Structure formats: structure tokens, C-alpha cells
């Protein structure tokens, strides 16, 4: 499995990027995070699960509460600015390829 790509798929979603920004300043519980979004709580939980699975977030047990926080090590990896650029071109070229398949006789 290509973890690197998974990270970029994770941040391709605007809600997940908003969650990362939210957690940039402080660790928060799932409930506190969900309170910042109009989205249903289970949807936010799903986003948190994806972000945790690709190691962008870490969970920390705090008494009875679980706090989510950024994993700085993994965040550094997405600061590698070439990958989103490559992804942008890859998406464009995939689209080009799909469109041109129609013209094949």
C-alpha cells in the first residue's frame, strides 16, 4: 500500500483539511471537532478515522476522553510541495486520456 498517496487522498477532501486546520492550534475531542461543522456527527467521525488511519492525526487518551491531535511528523510529509503539483497534473492527464478514448475509432 502506498501510504504517501493515501495522505494526499486524505487531504484532497475540504472537510478533512478544515479538521487539520482546526487541530493546528489545539488537541480536541471528536465532539468538539464535530461542533465546528454542519455535517452529521458520524460523517465527522468517518473523516477523523481516515485522518487517523493515514497517521495525520494521533489519538490520545485523556481520562475518559479521547483527544485528537496533529501528527507533526506526517504533516511534514505533506509539506513536501511537489506531490500536490504532480497530483494536479495526473488528474488533468487522466481526464485528457478519458476524453480522448471517445475519439478512438
Amino acid at each position, binding site marked *: 500500500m502506498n501510504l504517501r498517496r493515501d495522505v494526499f487522498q486524505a*487531504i484532497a477532501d475540504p472537510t478533512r483539511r478544515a479538521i487539520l*486546520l482546526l487541530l493546528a492550534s489545539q488537541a480536541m475531542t471528536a465532539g468538539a471537532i464535530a461542533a465546528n461543522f*454542519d455535517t452529521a456527527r458520524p460523517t465527522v467521525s468517518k473523516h477523523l478515522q481516515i485522518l487517523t488511519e493515514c497517521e495525520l492525526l494521533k489519538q490520545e487518551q485523556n481520562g475518559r476522553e479521547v483527544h485528537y491531535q496533529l501528527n507533526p511528523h506526517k504533516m511534514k510529509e505533506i509539506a513536501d510541495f*511537489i506531490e500536490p503539483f504532480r497530483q494536479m497534473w495526473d488528474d488533468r492527464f487522466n481526464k485528457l486520456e478519458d476524453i480522448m478514448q471517445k475519439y478512438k475509432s
Partner: protein
Amino acid sequence: MEKKTKVQAGEGRQDILITREFDLPVELLFKAYTQPEIVAEWMGTKVVKLENKKHGSWQFETSDPQGNVVFTAAGTIHDIIPNEKIVRTFQMAAPGFDAQLEFLEFEALTASTSKLNMLIVYKSVAHRDQQLRLPFAMGLNMAHERLQTIASRLQ
């Protein structure tokens, strides 16, 4: 799976090499770059002008759903050889961006597959790095704007 699109951007250099192999005959790949309505489709932009000839010029314009122009880019075609190459300039109409020179080489691999080499040369290392960072920065900006919208709703 190997990545289909490759980007080579050496540290401290002012160029980027983008390569990609396509499951398309080279003629169709070239057509995707020269037919305005097809360019519009895969680039997601309006093609205002596209003169496929030596010393011709081109112009793209992208609008948001409300019809406001959010992006324009233009340049001239320096050289064009069907199914082989396009040499052109590209410039985004936004402060801080300068012209870039693009060498597009189209290569037939087999009768049904082809390869594109796109070498982009920038004015400086800083200009190149700015372009490289743009997709990442835009992603974060979008998230930030969304967050601000959410925050303003909570007030």
C-alpha cells in the same frame, strides 16, 4: 502501482520536467492539445483563442459558477509540428507571475500508446518553486476559507 505522471524538479533548478505515458495514439494526444473544445474539456477552462501555428497566440479564461473570471492565462506559440512538438510561452495573469517557456514533446510508443514530455522553464528558481507550491497552497487556502465561513456562521 507505478505513478503514471512523473515530475522531476531538481533542488535549486528553474525548470520542471513532467512526463506521462498515455493509452492513446500520439495523434489523439496531440489533438487533445490543439482542438479548442477538447482543451476546454480536460483543462476545465474556456478557450478564448488557440492559434495552432508558428507565432500564433492562445488565451484561456476560467470563470466561477457566478460568471466571474477567476483565472486567465495566455501566451504565444513559438513552434508547432503536428504529432511531434509544441513550443509555447505560458503566463498566468496574476501579480507575481511571470512568463514561462514550455517545450512539449509528443512521442509515439506503439500504434496505440504515446508519451508526453513537458519541460517548463521559469524565470528564476523562486518563480519555479512558487508554481510548484501553488496546488498545495490552494488546497490549504480553500480549507481556510471554509473554516472562516464556518466560524462566521457561529458568531
